């Protein structure tokens, strides 16, 4: 701080400013420098690892580096991606994954939370049990699912289906079942955190609201629809945003369960395709273009969400 004060004294035209104002100015400057001193570590990290990469990704997507020579190529990388046979499959798969994950991973935990909130017993146990998978390293859980999805009856899923006289499935070996298989595994791993967040929101609903609704003759479903849902509206809409943004980045599930691309590109996700371009095809610029597309889609979704979502007041 010593240096800062001296800089202040030397840098100001001390004679032109009356003394009290000079002292106040100096105090403000010292105060600001102290504040920025506290900020500097985080700001440098954000600048280097977050803000600069954002700009750099856009720049890279319009360049091509060959043998150390970088040239501007306009929309060439984007056009190239469009002609990549996996490109449309990757987007289709990612959207399918996101939609399926919304159906199972978004609505289901809400109803589970409503159910758990009604129980007066075994509460602590049930909470711990649903959250346990969330704590596992994802690779651990997915390696287990990889063996469980074995298309023969050595896989536990097919064994159970067979034992229950239900049709068995080829799971990740079948193009139509690949995405549902990925969603099942992803939901098992992540559903616990949504359930607990919803449970916390449910516990904040004042009991009088339910009593009043009941006095008005509202049945169970009407109370659910007219009290529970509106009272948790904010958290429901926030979780919707978080879930969509998280599932659009799907990568580890296709990689471990289906070896990345799966049968006929049925597993390829956008982030997996990006990884392929950058680290298997040595095409960082194409990967950056794909990153920009995903960035635009996600940012666009967040902005649309911010405009349409209920305001907190």
């Amino acid at each position, binding site marked *: 701080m010593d240096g800062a004060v001296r800089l202040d004294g030397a840098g100001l035209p001390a004679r032109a400013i009356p003394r009290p104002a000079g002292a106040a100015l100096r105090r403000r400057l010292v105060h600001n420098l102290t504040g920025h001193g506290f900020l500097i570590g985080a700001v440098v990290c954000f600048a280097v690892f977050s803000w600069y990469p954002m700009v750099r990704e856009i720049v890279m997507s319009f360049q091509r580096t060959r043998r150390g020579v970088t040239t501007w190529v306009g929309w060439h990388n984007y056009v190239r991606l469009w002609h990549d046979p996996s490109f449309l499959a990757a987007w289709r798969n990612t959207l399918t994954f996101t939609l399926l994950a919304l159906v199972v991973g978004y609505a289901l935990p809400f109803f589970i939370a409503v159910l758990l909130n009604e129980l007066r017993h075994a509460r602590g146990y*049930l909470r711990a049990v649903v959250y*346990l998978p969330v704590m596992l390293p994802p690779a651990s859980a997915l390696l287990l699912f990889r063996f469980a999805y074995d298309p023969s009856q050595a896989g536990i899923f097919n064994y159970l289906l067979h034992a229950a006289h239900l049709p068995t499935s080829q799971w990740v070996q079948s193009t139509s079942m690949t995405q549902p298989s990925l969603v099942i595994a992803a939901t098992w791993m992540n559903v616990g955190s949504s359930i607990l967040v919803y449970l916390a929101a449910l516990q904040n609903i004042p009991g009088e609201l339910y009593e009043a609704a009941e006095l008005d003759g509202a049945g169970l479903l009407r109370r659910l629809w007219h009290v529970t849902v509106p009272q948790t509206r904010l958290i429901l809409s926030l979780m919707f945003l978080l879930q969509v943004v998280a599932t659009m980045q799907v990568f580890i599930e296709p990689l471990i369960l289906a070896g990345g691309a799966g049968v006929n590109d049925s597993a390829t996700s956008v982030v997996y395709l990006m990884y392929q371009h950058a680290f298997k095809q040595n095409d960082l610029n194409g990967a950056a273009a794909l990153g920009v597309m995903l960035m635009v889609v996600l940012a666009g979704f967040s902005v649309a969400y911010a405009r349409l979502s209920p305001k907190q007041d």
Partner: protein
Amino acid sequence: MDTAARTLVSPARLRRPGARRVYWAIVALVVLLFTVVFTGPLYWMVTGALKSGPEVAQIPPTLYPQHPQPGNYAEAWTALSLGRLLLNTVWYAFGALAFQLVFDVAAAYAFSKLRPAFGNALLGLMLATLMIPSTVLVIPQYVTVIDLPLVHWNMLDSPWAIWLPAVTNAFNIFLLKRFFDSIPQDLMSAAAIDGAGPVRTLWSVVLPISRPILGVVSIFSLTAIWKDFLWPLLVEPSADNRTVNVGIYAFSQGLTQNVVIAGAVIAAVPTVVFFLIFQKNIMSGLTAGSLKG
């Protein structure tokens, strides 16, 4: 636990004799179903890892190991070099936590209490990164990490490549700032009158009150580094430097099923133990971030 709180179903209705029975049936069903769905796979893992090679591939599968082979765990420990992987992960996770605690706490304190010029603009720029998840930026981040601008430092295969980017956790800064905002200004003024500078105020006034939020931030930071996959896969490419989450995937190619599963179990043990110890803090932490304050 507030068992008396009124919920969807009215307590009067629950007290009716028939309803009592239905309620207990539901409790039993839910407990059974959830135990099977959420801990069943864990049982399958632990016991599958004890089976012999032929038994684990057998049709139909056996429900418990006929001839338990604890040796599989020892084999997995060496084949996957799990000791190394776990040590690496602990080193990355706690280092990243230290950097986050120092830089993010300092930043949040500046945003909340010191409020220097352009503070709000910088905070806005940081929070804006919440909309752009880091997965989307891995390519330029990777290019930055292998050749840091201006200083031309290649961080690949060093812990710095995980530690420093971990600081850019805008959600942590948001949580911390919101907590610091709730600390009354009187306390701050009192410290100032006693002659405490900003560092001393942060250390002796703000941090002691902030223990709960620091606990939450720490737990989630550690878990996030432990569970991260794509970033450590890219920036720690050498077999010696892998994290446990990447390592058990990378080393599992070509190993038999029972050994891979044994490795997956060992990899999961530290996190499960961590969860059982900090269960209360984790549960309360889940609500800290999401509910309106």
